[in-house]
């Protein structure tokens, strides 16, 4: 990965090396709260990615006229705008998902992942690089949401994307779609992720 050109690197880092959920452990509120089904995870991942992408474009293009003293306020205004856009759009085009996600759509505003990328990346880089960064981080976040949501839905409801897998004989592990299930799943995934990363590092050191 180290030999690739820097543009690709900005995109790819969000997917794995600096994954917002598994490495940076950002955006825990939606990752735990609305990852109870695959469809909710996907919707939340895409909504967050959209807000992240639009905010990054605007912040990167306005960075020269935003004074440092009021930058956080300005970022929040920009982020809140796009969150409201997503809120309206979901209510208009997909009322069922809007009802499922409920207050967590409005809470995208306070997702550290988005404000963090504005402060750490978009405010210091060009529009093009910011788009790549936002896309990478957004896809990384959506991927992580699905990693939590799909197993939770399979175990907790015996289905995937609302398609029943095991028939009526399956007794679902209700705990998996309740809040503790989110913590269990995230815990296991972080364990697995870190174990994998450590093993890889060890291989590079000795090999």
């Amino acid at each position, binding site marked *: 990965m180290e030999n690739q050109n820097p543009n690709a690197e900005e995109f790819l880092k969000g997917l794995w090396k600096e994954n917002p959920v598994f490495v940076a452990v950002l955006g825990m509120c939606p990752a735990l709260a609305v990852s109870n089904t695959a469809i909710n995870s996907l919707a939340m991942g895409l909504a967050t990615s959209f807000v992240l992408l639009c905010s990054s474009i605007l912040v990167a293009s306005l960075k020269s006229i935003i*004074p440092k003293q009021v930058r956080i306020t*300005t970022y929040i205004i920009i982020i809140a705008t796009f969150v409201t856009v997503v809120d*309206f759009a979901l209510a*208009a085009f997909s*009322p069922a998902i809007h009802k499922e996600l409920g207050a967590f759509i409005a809470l995208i505003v306070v997702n550290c992942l988005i404000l963090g990328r504005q402060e750490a990346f978009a405010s210091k880089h060009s529009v093009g690089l910011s788009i790549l960064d936002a896309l990478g981080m957004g896809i990384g976040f959506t991927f992580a949401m699905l990693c939590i949501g799909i197993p939770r839905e399979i175990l*907790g409801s015996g289905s995937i994307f609302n398609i029943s897998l095991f028939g009526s004989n399956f007794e*679902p592990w*209700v705990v998996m779609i*309740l809040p503790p299930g989110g913590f269990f799943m995230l815990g296991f995934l972080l364990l697995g992720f870190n174990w994998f990363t450590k093993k890889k590092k060890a291989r590079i050191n000795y090999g």
Partner: protein
Amino acid sequence: MKATEENNIIVNETLSENEPSSFSLVSALGIAGLLSGIILVGTFLYTNPLIQNNKEAAIQRAIYKVLPNCDSYIPLIMVENKLLEKVENANGKEESDKSELLIYAGYNANKELIGFAVPGSEPGFQDIIETMFGYDDMKRMIIGFEVLQSKETPGLGDKIFKDADFQTNFLELAIEPEIVPVKKGAKTKPNEVEAITGATISSKAIARLLNKTISIWKDPIDEFIRSNNLRISKNIN
């Protein structure tokens, strides 16, 4: 390590720069606010009619579900314990008074009154459960039930709208003397509701909701039918 370096850079930059004028601070926030306003107003104008349509469609779907054979309906409001046909305002806009008591009278294809779709809400295990149910005045029975909004526990309390067995409770449920929740499989009388195992509180909340809402509407509905000489058609099924 990296974060500390970044912080140092920010501190150095802030110290080395001159304080920007208040004007530039205000204008930066002003521009951000203006842009935000334009985007939001545009989105709102575009999506609001769609959102209103969705809401109406959801109510319509619920009415048709809880009143089988329903072909058309009219909203009725309660004014001083009497039911009146809801008239639209002169400017054509619907009144948005949320506190008004509203039910829907359903008619079949022959324009005969077949029942009433009644919205009702009651606190459940997590939050207010909002429902709509069909009430047949002639049979004194509940003939359909739909949950409009609920935050009941996924996998347990949400069976009030996901469990098909529980839903069959409300296809023919006598409302007199009152609706009583009983254990699953213990139903012997027409006024009993079989509760969901593992969701007793939600099941009881539904029974409470039905009793409470029926007691509000039963007399006004009877009065409405008497005073308008309406009779519910007998050939529902």
